[in-house]
């Protein structure tokens, strides 16, 4: 039995770089030098990730389910 992780992905074509996600989860989202958000592949609180998705003015954040790399079952 293993639990999928959630990973955030930012659509750079949609992102306007408002940075609401970076304010909420600074360890996950950073605004790069071009002014777009980039999501780091790190574990984060599911509720906060979902809030980031809902807060994004551009609906540019998507959550992707990632199966564990090494099955633990």
């Amino acid at each position, binding site marked *: 039995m293993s639990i999928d992780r959630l990973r955030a992905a930012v659509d750079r074509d949609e992102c*306007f*770089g*408002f940075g609401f996600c970076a304010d909420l989860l600074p360890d996950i989202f950073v605004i790069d*030098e071009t*002014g777009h958000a980039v999501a780091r592949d790190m574990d984060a609180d599911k509720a906060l990730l979902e*809030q980031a998705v809902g*807060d994004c*003015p*551009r609906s540019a954040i998507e959550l992707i389910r990632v199966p564990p790399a090494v099955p633990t079952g």
Partner: protein
Amino acid sequence: MSGRRAGREASLIGVRRLMAVAEITGHAAVKAAAKDPVTFSSDLLGDRDVRTYRQLPLEVDPPEHGAYRAILAPVFARPAIAALEPALRAVAAGIAARFAARGHVEAVHELALPMVGASIAIAFGRPQDADELVGWGTESWETMPDGRRDGSRLERYLGRVFAEADEHPGTDAFSLVARAELEGRRLSREERHGLGNLILAGGRDTVIGLIAGAMWHLAAEQGERVRLAAHPGRIPAAVEELLRFLSPLPAIERVATEDISGPWGRAHGGDLVLLGFAAANHDATVFTDPGTVNLERSPNPHVAFGNGPHTCIGVHLARLEARVFLEALLAAVPGWRLDGEPEIAWATVEGSRVPARFDRVPVEVAP
């Protein structure tokens, strides 16, 4: 481009009524409408009494919206605004020091107005214009003796700064607009003024209201002032709550492109409707006790900056102005209280009384 523009004018004429027939309220409904520019179009011309052209990118829909927005993006991008912090801190420190030395001020005109006037002059790369922008007072449009609004002062300013940008291009926001290209052509005069009008009128009066509102609210809240002074890291959350409660831009117009209805009412295709940002920010199903200012409110998913593609382009600048202003004030004086009766125009938002406009907020330094 020409085809799209022709379509735009046609649909403008197609606006059935020039007054909004309904206001969309409720946090979820307002947010959903703001994210849906197909059903709730920005293809309109507002403020017809004071301008004859559209504010850009505010009053066009995607995809044109994105092209205009990209022109302004270098001015308002998060890293560009973050780089302004030392300069804005210096402005705030000077304003706070004058308050500390004099002991009493009228916060709207002597604190909020100079903070915002200088901040936007610096942000737009024309610091030499700070006194002029402050001299406009709290409203970008002038009010004539007969009560009509007049936009000619703003037009004269835009005409002058764009002429200077053409003659001596610099690194300022107006030079950026003046040399911008859209699909291989330079911008028309109306497009230039549309962008310039937006950045001047959009973030001036609103942030003046936010900062005046912060002074007004904190005048009666000594405990909150002490807490924020001791923990400046909590000032940003306080600013967000003041943004929510005051909602300096309470609503914005959209054109319904089809017949729609909701708990808020109904509208026909072609009707003007309002997206009620203030109403959304006072939705009791999302914000506990929305009529009370809770400076530690968390989470605080307010829509004071709107939502969707038209989310305020100046969000980082507005937040920076308010934060460094409060940091400077709280560091410079032990506290302040009202020094006489404030003059405030009130509105009722979802059953709560909320200041809609601060005309005068006299304050004095208090221990």
